[in-house]
């Protein structure tokens, strides 16, 4: 049983992403905005398993997060698919310090991409009402999210990466 949990650690941790997404701990927020939680899981997963796996699990994450948010007109899938694919191209680095900074930067960039995709969808849908310009101040949501995601990524991603590597190693006889 224990062996099973260790082996499936990455998949088990996947289940907690929507829960944290729903939980939305306010004390972690900045300007009422939260870090973009799915990227913290997607980055180490894609780095270990490659682009195709990253793309597939980006799609899975997008599907599940879309289902728990109420926006029927907007989707998170394109951003997460793109990030999953992109993160899979990134190679691991030997220097621990550099690696930590890289997590922050990569997650910030991913959060910026996802936020921008979402923002563009809102602009596009409201374009016909000629109200789209009113949504411009919402850019602050993207910036706050980018900052927070970049801030927390080095702590969370490094731990998750270590966890995923641990769960993949073969048992010693």
């Amino acid at each position, binding site marked *: 049983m224990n062996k099973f949990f260790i082996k499936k650690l990455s998949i088990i941790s996947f289940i907690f992403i929507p829960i944290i997404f729903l939980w939305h701990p306010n004390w972690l927020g900045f300007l009422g905005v939260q870090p973009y939680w799915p990227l913290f899981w997607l980055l180490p997963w894609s780095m270990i398993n490659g682009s195709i796996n990253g793309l597939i699990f980006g799609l899975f994450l997008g599907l599940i997060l879309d289902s728990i948010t109420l926006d029927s007109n907007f989707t998170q899938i394109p951003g997460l698919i793109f990030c999953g694919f992109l993160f899979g191209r990134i190679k691991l680095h030997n220097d621990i310090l550099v690696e930590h900074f890289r997590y922050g930067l990569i997650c910030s960039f991913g959060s910026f991409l996802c936020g921008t995709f979402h*923002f563009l969808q809102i602009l596009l849908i409201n374009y016909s009402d000629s109200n789209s310009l009113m949504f411009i101040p919402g850019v602050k*949501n993207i910036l706050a999210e980018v900052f927070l995601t970049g801030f927390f990524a080095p702590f969370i991603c490094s731990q998750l990466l270590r966890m995923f590597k641990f769960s993949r190693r073969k048992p010693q006889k």
Partner: protein
Amino acid sequence: MFNIRRISTSRWWHKKKSWVFFAIFLFLVFVRISKGSLYKDFYYFISKPFWPGQFQKEIILKSLDQESFIKLNLLKKDNKRLREILSLQKSSNIDYISAAVISRKTGSWWRQIILNKGLKDGVEIGSIVLGPGGLLGRITNISLFTSSVTLITSPESKLGVWVDRIQINGLLVGLGDDYPSLIIYSKDADIKVGDFVTSSPASTLLPPNIPIGIVHSVDETLKSKKTAKISLLAKPHLIDWVQILKLNI
């Protein structure tokens, strides 16, 4: 004897892993179509120990001054009588359900709260959700144990509202920040900072005269219309208990 050659054993459909992924994909599509009902019900059970206690509810209830409560009831009766005389839309057949907020997303683009009352408590899609102060949003999704509320600050929310002082209808649009925008399609409307905004008597989504907010700032730069930022009376990021209005408009 013929040599039977194994043909294309490495095709993707021969791999068990591909079918596992396909099954997961189908399951997630099901979750997506059902708007995450299973997940929300699962979240309902695991978040149960962390729900807000009775304490805040008691404070809110005690804070209602008895005198103003009696006055309010008298005014309601008066209002009902006058509406019947004028044959206006009724707002009297209202049934309240108290609910606790078990999940809250009040920042970023997704502005929603999840309540601990669902289908089993008789909540319906389209019901109005009120907090101390006024309107919070409308229920747009229900599972067996939970209901999800689209807040009026969400970019998905568009409501008809009424500015009482100048007697004009407008459209309240959520922008993804804390101040939704009021659009009045008339350049001559004399809207001012401090004007009180309520639900519109002409709205088909809301009952009339529900307090919503106060005009925070007015933008007159557009040629054909006026827009104003509205400061909401009910603060969704602070409220732990809400009331769901079951009503037939």
